[in-house]
């Protein structure tokens, strides 16, 4: 983590027994790991778990004191493989990533890990990127737990429960020799709350001891016949031991009255929303009192059949509140009750939506219908639950749907990727539209207005592979775009090397912005920052050359739109065969500003000569055609209504958030747009000589301007 300081959060990791931790859910997990005696932590950054990685990356002192090894892994597969240390040794290890995308990548290692099983507790913290605010396909991590026989914890979304789940997860993993996954949804990761801290625990058995006294057992290797024995072991030993542990330690919770006609079976993560829905229905209060019995599954896999059967036995009907699809819990519950010959009716996705975010309003609606069917007496009371429908039916409000513009995330002010796509759009004007294969990262915003470039993405580092079928003689070449993050994650082998080996004729643009930018600006092998913790400054060009690419062009200033366009044109038209790789490199502006701004302010305060650049628009020259915006979309370049009666359409305007990246000028120059743009270099603390010369120049210029003004016969403004 290069340009952002997490010093305050790191301090929170040192909290001692009895002190109050205040902060985000995901940081509570970080502290909980230290309290659990973890020996090593790894992972791959991504929303919503990036902060876990970021804070640990800054917490070297704390980790060293405890003898904990931390690393930012090259990918989720690398992170999952790291858990291998816990196979033979009583070492607790934790890894984290964004799910389900990261779990997909990690599956190879997870499958092998889960087969042989673990000795030390292995915990996988999953940032379940689901529902509103999610940036990935809407799938469930639950499926991975079932297919590989790993346990899945889904605690109630408050800091105490989350912290307890971390500790429970390790213990459950050890008790059943099985890796455990801890699932946290986006809002739970970002929830601000508090818990009473405990002291950090130094691991009793160290990595060093393990390394110096290696252990091996052919039984743990995934080779037949051991691999077949693993399967038997999973079913006959590890699973029953896990169920027993969950029961004995009461990991699942019951709330509300012991008896009742009906009940609710829910994922722990759904608890707060279900409670609020019940409150709206007059069946619960804000302090957790409930008139309806609740069975809260803080462990959603495995299901404890006997326990849930006990909950259901005396009830007429239960409803399962389970987010996402397929309805694994509902199906499992039906099967469990059926096998035990319990006649309780099981409902769930028949009253609740099949997919998507389970908002409080949706849960309330589902529960209300369920209660109306099975316990009308409960809902007969006068309740006034919030209802937005009458307001939403208002015509004036409905008219807003056509007015309020969508506002998706896009390139930041001064982003170095903007000029790359401006150049690509200009190239398209000459050479026509091309097939553009996208990847994962900031650059995928190119598919949105104003660029509208590219239309698909197959996964991280896979843009090159995603165009591999298009390797036939044709009038146009395909283009793949990937970021430096994707390149190091998987792109080098799956996209670049693959293209070399298969003699692909396409163009691959690698955007090197010096960070894994979309996930928060973490360092990667090609980062320029010197890091004492990691080895950086490994040029992408050398890696590309190393796997056999012959045609490589490196641009070290993406803002040079004309050059970028020339290189793209060359790549698309050169007779040379094999993949054409363009590496377009400029620093992520968000991180650059974090780095440079404090330095700049300090220099100004110290009286040093520094120059601030920003752009402006001459309103008189701008005709309001907005061609510049269609090649930019920069937040600092906007339009405003003019008070000039002769101008109908709004004119371009640049606000003070401009960082002077140069895109506006370069684009208007390369695309021959208009001469409205100017760049202003403001010199702070100019030298005396400089001031002298400037004054002399200004004197002459002023003199000439006065002559012109005198000569001009015009009406006063």
């Amino acid at each position, binding site marked *: 983590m290069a340009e952002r300081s997490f010093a305050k959060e790191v301090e929170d990791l040192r909290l001692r027994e009895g002190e109050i931790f205040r902060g985000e859910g995901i940081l509570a997990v970080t502290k909980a790991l230290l309290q659990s005696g973890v020996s090593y932590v790894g992972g791959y950054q991504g929303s919503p778990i990036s902060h876990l990685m970021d804070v640990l990356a800054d917490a070297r002192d704390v980790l060293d004191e405890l003898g904990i090894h931390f690393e930012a892994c090259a990918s989720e597969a690398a992170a999952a493989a790291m858990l291998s240390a816990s196979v033979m040794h009583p070492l607790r290890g934790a890894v984290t990533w964004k799910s389900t995308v990261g779990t997909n990548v990690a599956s190879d290692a997870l499958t092998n890990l889960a087969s042989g099983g673990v000795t030390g507790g292995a915990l996988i913290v999953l940032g379940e990127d689901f529902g*509103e605010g999610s*940036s990935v396909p809407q799938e469930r991590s639950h499926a991975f737990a079932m297919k590989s026989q790993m346990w899945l914890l889904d605690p109630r979304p408050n800091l105490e429960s989350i912290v307890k789940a971390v500790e429970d997860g390790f213990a459950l993993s050890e008790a059943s020799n099985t890796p455990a996954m801890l699932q946290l949804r986006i809002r739970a990761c970002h*929830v*601000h709350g508090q818990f009473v801290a405990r002291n950090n625990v130094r691991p009793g058995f160290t990595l060093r001891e393990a390394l110096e006294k290696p252990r091996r057992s052919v039984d743990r290797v995934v080779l037949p016949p051991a691999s077949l024995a693993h399967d038997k072991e999973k079913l006959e030993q590890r699973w029953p031991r896990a169920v027993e542990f969950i029961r004995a330690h009461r990991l*699942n919770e*019951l709330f509300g009255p012991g008896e009742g006609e009906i009940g609710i079976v829910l994922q722990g993560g759904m608890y707060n*929303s279900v409670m609020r829905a019940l409150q709206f229905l007059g069946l619960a*209060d*804000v*302090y957790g*009192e409930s*008139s309806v019995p609740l069975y809260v599954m803080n462990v959603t896999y495995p299901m404890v059949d006997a*326990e849930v059967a006990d909950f259901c036995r005396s009830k007429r009907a239960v409803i399962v509140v389970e987010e996402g699809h397929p309805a694994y819990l509902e199906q499992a519950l039906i099967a469990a009750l059926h096998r035990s010959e319990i006649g309780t009716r099981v409902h769930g996705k028949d009253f609740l939506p099949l997919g998507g975010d389970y*908002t*409080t309003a949706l849960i*309330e609606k589902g529960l209300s219908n369920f209660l109306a069917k099975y316990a009308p007496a409960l809902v007969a009371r006068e309740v006034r639950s*919030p209802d937005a429908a009458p*307001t*939403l039916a*208002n015509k004036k*409000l409905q008219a*807003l749907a056509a*007015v309020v*513009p969508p*506002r*998706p*995330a*896009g390139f*930041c002010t001064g982003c170095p990727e903007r000029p790359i796509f401006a150049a690509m759009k200009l190239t398209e004007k000459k050479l026509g539209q091309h097939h553009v294969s996208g990847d994962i990262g900031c650059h995928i915003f190119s598919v949105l*207005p*104003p660029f509208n470039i590219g239309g698909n993405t197959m996964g991280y580092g896979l843009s090159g592979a995603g165009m591999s079928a298009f390797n036939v003689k044709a009038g146009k070449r395909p283009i793949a775009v990937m970021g430096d993050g994707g390149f190091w994650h998987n792109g080098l082998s799956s996209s670049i090397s693959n293209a070399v080996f298969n003699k692909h004729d396409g163009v691959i643009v690698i955007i090197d912005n010096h960070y894994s930018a*979309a996930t928060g600006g973490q360092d990667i092998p090609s980062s320029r920052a010197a890091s004492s913790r990691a080895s950086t400054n490994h040029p992408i060009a050398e890696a590309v050359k190393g796997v056999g690419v012959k045609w490589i062009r490196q641009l070290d200033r993406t803002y040079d739109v*004309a050059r970028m366009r020339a290189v793209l044109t060359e790549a698309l038209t050169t007779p040379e065969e094999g993949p054409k790789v363009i590496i377009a490199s400029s620093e992520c502006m968000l991180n650059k500003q974090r780095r440079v701004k404090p330095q700049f302010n300090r220099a100004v305060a110290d009286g040093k000569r520094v120059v601030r650049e920003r752009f*402006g628009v*001459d309103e*008189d*020259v701008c*005709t309001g*055609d*907005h*061609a510049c915006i269609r090649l930019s979309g920069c*937040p600092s370049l*906007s*339009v405003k*209504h003019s*008070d000039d*009666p*002769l101008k109908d*359409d709004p004119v371009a305007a640049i606000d003070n958030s401009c960082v002077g990246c140069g895109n506006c000028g370069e684009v208007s120059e390369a695309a*021959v*747009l208009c*001469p409205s743009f*100017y760049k*202003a270099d403001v010199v702070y603390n*100019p030298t005396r000589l400089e001031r002298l010369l*400037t004054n002399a*120049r200004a004197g002459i210029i002023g003199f000439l301007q006065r002559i012109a003004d005198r000569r001009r*016969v*015009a*009406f006063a403004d």
Partner: protein
Amino acid sequence: MSAQPLGRSRALSADKPISIAILAMGGQGGGVLSNWIVALAESQGWAAQSTSVPGVAQRTGATIYYIEILAARAGKRPIFALMPTPGDVDIVIAAELMEAGRAMLRGLLSPDRTTLIASTHRSLAVVEKQVPGDGIADPTTIVEAAEMTARRVIAFDMQRVAEGNGGAISAAMLGVLAAADILPFARSAFESAIREEGKGVESSLRTFSAAFERTRERPREAVTRVPDKRLPTLPASAGHPTLDRLLQRIRAGFPSAVQAMVFTGVKRVVDYQDSEYGNEYLDRLEKLHRLDVAHGGAKKEYRFTVETAKYLAVAMTYEDVVRVADLKVRASRFRRVRAEIGVKNEQIVHLTEYMHPRMEEVMDTLPAPLGRFLERRPRLFRALDRIVSRGRRVRTDSLRWFIALYALASAKAFRRASLRHARELAHIERWTRTAAVHLPGNYDLATEVVACRRLIKGYSDTHARGNSKFDRVLGLVPRLESLPDAADWLRRLREAALADEQGEALDSAVKALGAAASR
């Protein structure tokens, strides 16, 4: 197996948390505001929880933060929701006007309980900015809807308050929240939250305070769709005999209702060329105005004359390199730039213009015969273009470049002889004639023909595209002139031509016209 003893449930408490939703864009400090409110509540012995769905690291997308707070009760731990429920939000804070609209669309506002705190400033979305015409969403619809859906509305430009006090909009919004007296906390408690957080304390407190006072004095501010145009009043004298003669012509030749627009046009053309050009402008305009009068213009408030006065001025002041140079070297421009950039006295500013003259622009300024000569020799033209056409970074504050532009600006003495001038005048002739032809039969259509000049704008390719759209739209006039609502059709076509760059909206409007015409 249970975590708590089972039993009959006790009586339910009626306590309800105060719920606050903050809608902001990345980089607006929504997270900071949310932290302040949580810290404030906790400092006053309340329980608080906040959540957000911020998505990726970028700074542009819309983000929602949600906070619940509740007075603490001994031994009780409230369970807070992780997301706002439509119809159940007490306070909605929108850091931008359209985000207030988004909150309404989500049903977060209820007329019986919600206080809306919204900054009326706009941060335009890409889809609004990229439209070739005016794509800016109508802010008045948001305000009208807010009246219907909120219990109370506090709305003014909080961004400006923040900028004026060197702080962020988050601090301004906290000040508004404090002044709104919704939360039962003293102003000092709000300020302590800012102090505790510790970053940019002074400017945040200043901003907080300014927004607080402003809310107490004037919690509302009107928004308008398009700000008023600055129509000048006709002065008694301009202090120069030739200018006064022009004023005299305006007063004598036009009804008072249209004089302001005519004067605007005269001002522009005189500034562009010279006072004689003002007379040429008035010659043309008077001729057209007489036609207007003859065809019942009085009843139509001389709309034909007003539109012609406007677009004729625009057409006669076409953008050429001489004009650009003239505008770039003026003293007034130097002053405006310094003010816009916020340059302090002791600071020096260097100005770089981004220019890309092509052979076309050079030819524009050449005497017409020479221009035509070159045009007939495409190979020579291309060879010269290779020398001329490249991006040039022009340092207007350097003597070399200033003098070059200064000299270029004074080339306007030769403008009337240039090829471009001849072409522009011919174009004006054709366009005004087309308009005038329809004046006897369909006054409104004639006026719309004049207004189509709006389509021509921009430089180089954009200008060419504008021209071709103009030709295409005017070319459709024969097809629509027999329709009963011909003027409306032409207006619709023009609006469609301004909706997107590629002309897709225009294509479908033309299709619709085809269907209507064949009916």
